[in-house]
């Protein structure tokens, strides 16, 4: 509250303090105007200041308006300043005439009011103009400004987030690091302990081999490094749950590519040379193992009545003839054949040497057996393989007096039947039947119909090609293994490859104790032993078969054809072959092996047997 009062006059104190409504009213109005104006200015100023993009025009307009306002104030409100000062302090700075005409005062106020209104209007107009200018200018710079603004905002947000992240990062990293370290070390230590305390396997069924064993320590072994290497191998080879992990690996590898409906090749392309003068021979991989620890074999021999322990030793150096190249097509594993005319010619000359040494009294037959690659390789991969047909023809062309047996034709006529196992590298009993039939025709011996045999089927067979290719398609699609038991009577005697350790045992093994991968061992219990089958036939015909593992399956089919059958594996036999043939009084000698053997590294064994 303020009055235009007079101080200093003691006697007129009351008078001075008399309220003057009109003056008060005018004063209030003026004050109000001034206050609103100041407020507005403040706001305006604040607004313009806070705006990031200040335009010169805007600022200029503002300054102009401020100046105008000040001028107006100075002109029309000379008393307003002291009055305001009086409100805050009691010091009188501008004396006002004590006796002023109230009317004058009203007029003055009215005038003031009017002026104030005018000023306001003016100000408003100016502001509008300024705003218009501002809008106009900003309109032109709008796009640019907006993009700048957006960019700035984005940058700012990013920075803010980065600062935020930076603030939390060490903590976060520590937390996540603890989690990471914990999880990984639990996994690592868990597996580590598991590997130490869990039982380690000793044999591998799918690989059909004994796993590495812990080496015994000796200083010399240590110095040449074989001890530590042996420990590493033992540790890495005999992992608990090995088969499971191998299965997982095969599954994982299956997903490395795209195999649906297509074919897959493991181990690269085959190599062969089917020209007469080549030096190249089919790939030979020498695997080393002993089967002597395979429990399956010892189980089957417990029923025998021999005095000598069963002899299942295998030669240290095994010369398996295998090519590393397996094509998987429609769940069938096909080993890709390379072939070699040169080795085939050697094979033929070896047989010719037998014939010339044994003379015409002994008939020699050559049965070179084709493998699935002749019949089941898809058209687009034919170019990868050597022709088994051509290789067999090449051999036959070089035979002198030796009778070729056309196993190729016999099998080719029945390719829609189950003549080969899908998951194994061997043929099936049925394939062997057709080949044996062809042989019996060539040898002019009786041959029993298939109905004379009893078929035995065992489901769940996954043969060697899974272990070798690691292709999960084979593992996931097992087949039925089958063989035929002759109804005819016969006795079987086994010898070891040096003709010792004679014992009697069934021709066909009981498969119940064998792991599926080894079921082809049903015939003769494997390759190595020399087998003598004495049949009920009475025709004075004695057959000696020199064979590889394909030949094993032929034997049951010939039990109605020859009086005596001697089966010799050409890789393991140690006595001289000619002497042996003459000893047993053979009338017929059959060389029965597949194309990989006849045109590969096994062929040389034929010559070795003759001269050893």
């Amino acid at each position, binding site marked *: 509250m303020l009055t235009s009062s007079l101080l200093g006059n003691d006697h007129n104190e009351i008078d001075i303090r008399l309220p003057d409504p009109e003056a008060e009213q005018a004063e209030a109005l003026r004050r109000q105007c001034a206050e609103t104006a100041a407020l507005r200015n403040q706001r305006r100023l604040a607004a313009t200041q806070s705006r990031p993009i200040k335009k010169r025009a805007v600022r200029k307009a503002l300054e102009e308006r401020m100046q105008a306002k000040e001028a107006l104030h100075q002109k029309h409100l000379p008393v307003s300043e002291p009055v305001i000062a009086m409100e805050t302090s009691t010091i009188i700075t501008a004396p006002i005439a004590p006796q002023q005409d109230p009317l004058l005062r009203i007029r003055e106020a009215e005038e003031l009011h009017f002026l104030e209104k005018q000023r306001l209007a003016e100000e408003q107009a100016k502001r509008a103009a300024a705003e218009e200018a501002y809008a106009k200018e900003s309109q032109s710079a709008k796009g640019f400004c907006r993009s700048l603004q957006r960019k700035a905002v984005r940058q700012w947000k990013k920075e803010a987030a980065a600062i935020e992240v930076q603030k939390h990062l060490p903590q976060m990293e520590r937390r996540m690091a603890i989690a*990471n370290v914990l999880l990984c*070390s639990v996994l690592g230590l868990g*597996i580590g302990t598991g590997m130490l305390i869990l039982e380690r396997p000793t044999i591998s069924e799918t690989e059909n081999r004994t796993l590495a064993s812990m080496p015994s320590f000796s200083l010399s072994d240590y110095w040449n490094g074989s001890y530590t290497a042996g420990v590493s191998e033992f540790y890495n080879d005999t992992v608990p749950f090995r088969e499971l992990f191998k299965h997982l690996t095969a599954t994982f590898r299956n997903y490395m590519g795209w195999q649906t409906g297509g074919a897959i090749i493991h181990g690269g392309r085959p190599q062969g040379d089917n020209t007469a003068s080549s030096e190249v021979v089919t790939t030979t991989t020498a695997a080393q193992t002993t089967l002597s620890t395979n429990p399956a074999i010892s189980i089957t021999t417990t029923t025998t009545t021999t005095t000598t322990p069963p002899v299942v030793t295998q030669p240290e150096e095994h010369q398996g003839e295998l090519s590393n190249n397996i094509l998987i097509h429609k769940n069938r594993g096909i080993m890709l054949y390379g072939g070699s005319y040169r080795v085939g010619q050697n094979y033929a000359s070896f047989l010719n040497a037998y014939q010339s040494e044994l003379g015409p009294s002994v008939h020699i037959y050559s049965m070179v057996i084709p493998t699935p690659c002749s019949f089941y390789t898809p058209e687009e991969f034919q170019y990868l393989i050597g022709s088994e047909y051509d290789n067999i023809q090449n051999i036959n062309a070089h035979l002198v007096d030796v009778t070729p047996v056309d196993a190729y034709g016999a099998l080719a006529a029945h390719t829609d039947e189950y003549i080969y196992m899908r998951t194994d590298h061997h043929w099936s009993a049925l394939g062997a039947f057709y080949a044996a039939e062809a042989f019996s025709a060539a040898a002019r011996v009786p041959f029993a119909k298939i109905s004379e045999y009893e078929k035995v089927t065992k489901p769940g067979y996954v043969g060697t090609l899974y272990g070798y290719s690691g292709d999960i398609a084979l593992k996931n699609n097992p087949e039925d293994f089958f063989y035929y038991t002759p109804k005819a009577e016969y006795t079987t005697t086994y010898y070891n490859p040096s003709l010792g350790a004679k014992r009697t045992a069934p021709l066909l093994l009981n498969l119940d104790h064998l792991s599926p991968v080894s079921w082809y061992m049903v015939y003769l219990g494997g390759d190595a032993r020399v087998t003598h089958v004495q049949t009920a036939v009475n025709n004075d015909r004695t057959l000696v078969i020199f064979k590889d593992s394909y030949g094993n399956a032929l034997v049951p089919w010939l039990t109605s054809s020859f009086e005596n059958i001697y089966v010799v594996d050409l890789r393991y036999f140690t006595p001289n072959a000619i002497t042996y043939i003459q000893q047993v009084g053979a009338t017929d000698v059959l060389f029965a092996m597949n194309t990989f053997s006849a045109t590969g590294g096994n062929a040389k064994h034929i010559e070795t047997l003759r001269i050893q």
Partner: protein
Amino acid sequence: MVFSSLIFLYLFLPVCLLCYGLSSSLAWKNTILVIFSLIFYAWGEPIYIFLLLGSVIINYLFGLAMGKCKDQKQEKGAKAFMILALLFNLGLLGIFKYSGFLVENLNLLPFISLPVPSLRLPIGISFYTFQILSYLIDLYWDKVERQRNLGHFLLYISMFPQLVAGPIVRYSTIAAEIGSRKVTMTEFSSGISRFVLGLAKKVILSNHLSVIVADFFGGDLSQLTVLGTWYAVAVYAMQVYFDFSGYSDMAIGMGLMFGFHFDENFRHPFLCKDISEFWQRWHISLGTFFRDYLLYMPIFGKRRKYGGLFLVWFCTGLWHGASWNFILWGLYFGIFIFIEQCIGKKKMRKIPLLFRHLYSKLVILIGFGIFYFESLSKLLIFFRRLIGLDGAALTDQYLLLSIRNHIWLLLAAVICCFPIAEWFKKLGNRSVGSAYVFNALQTVCNVVLLAVSSILLVDATNNPFLYFRF
């Protein structure tokens, strides 16, 4: 013992880390590390461990002597010791690595027929000899203090993460950390991640790529088609990259677990735009070694650009193996780097990016062909196949089948040539939430990769016998 074997992963490393973590003082930690390193080396080299120990002791003495000469300002003495040390170390390397090669080539000259020595190459001799040299040369150049503690020096040389297959860790890089270091949880964790990444590169990618390479290059080269040759050499380039960088990753990761910070050895070399850049990204520790210790030798002076450059590349090639193809390989890169230097950096930059990439990839791929074929006659067949001489077919079913059979592996390999881990980290660090997600993802990745790699390693001993006889 190799890193990518179960006995290392699940017996040696955990036991070593446990002992290391449980030991209280740094002196104990260093002792543990030395003991385990010696076991690690002796596991593979029961005899040559003595060569390593002897070399360490003698070079330690060289260092001491040289330091003493330096202290007494006897520059001549220091120089004499330096030359002696160089002769000793390079002599050892020469005897064990190159004597057979040298004699074989000398025997090609008329009237010379020397018996070819058949020394087995001690594992890691190329790496640790260079580490020793880095210490001695730096000491000679007053860049580092001499190491008075034999144990510390032995630790530097024999530390098993980098002992057998690099990277070549300079003494100056870890000199301080031998005497004082600290392992934080975060670094230990990133060490694990790095190690697992390296393991996966080696076991999942490299090992499987090598099967493809063996399919094409392992057998009869006359069956190769043009595209098949290019395909196989590209796969081989990736195989070597993942193999070698995987090993470096494992070394760097284990270094972190023990508190050491090794320098990077590979920085996505296939992203390079020219050959000079390739060598700044490929086997960095070797490249910088030759650059710092050979190229800048004062003897070259102004001839550095020509003589020095080719000497460096000759040595780089020779370092990789005692065979002509490696020398050829080194000089091959030397020629391209020389050409690039002649053109100049500014002019190189003006060439369109696409052409630079094409050019560099072409040179690198052919380079890997030279790297693969140690027999020069086979190398010649490779070149002829590459450009379609001798009536090579353009492509065949076998190539298509190989690609189809390995398509996901190949895709994964190509993707992993890019710095995806860095991209993910950048993406993850945008906000706190995503950083958590990506870190969790990394942990999950680690566990999965470790498990998958371990399972694959079980199959590494797959040596099927399989009754595979006919």
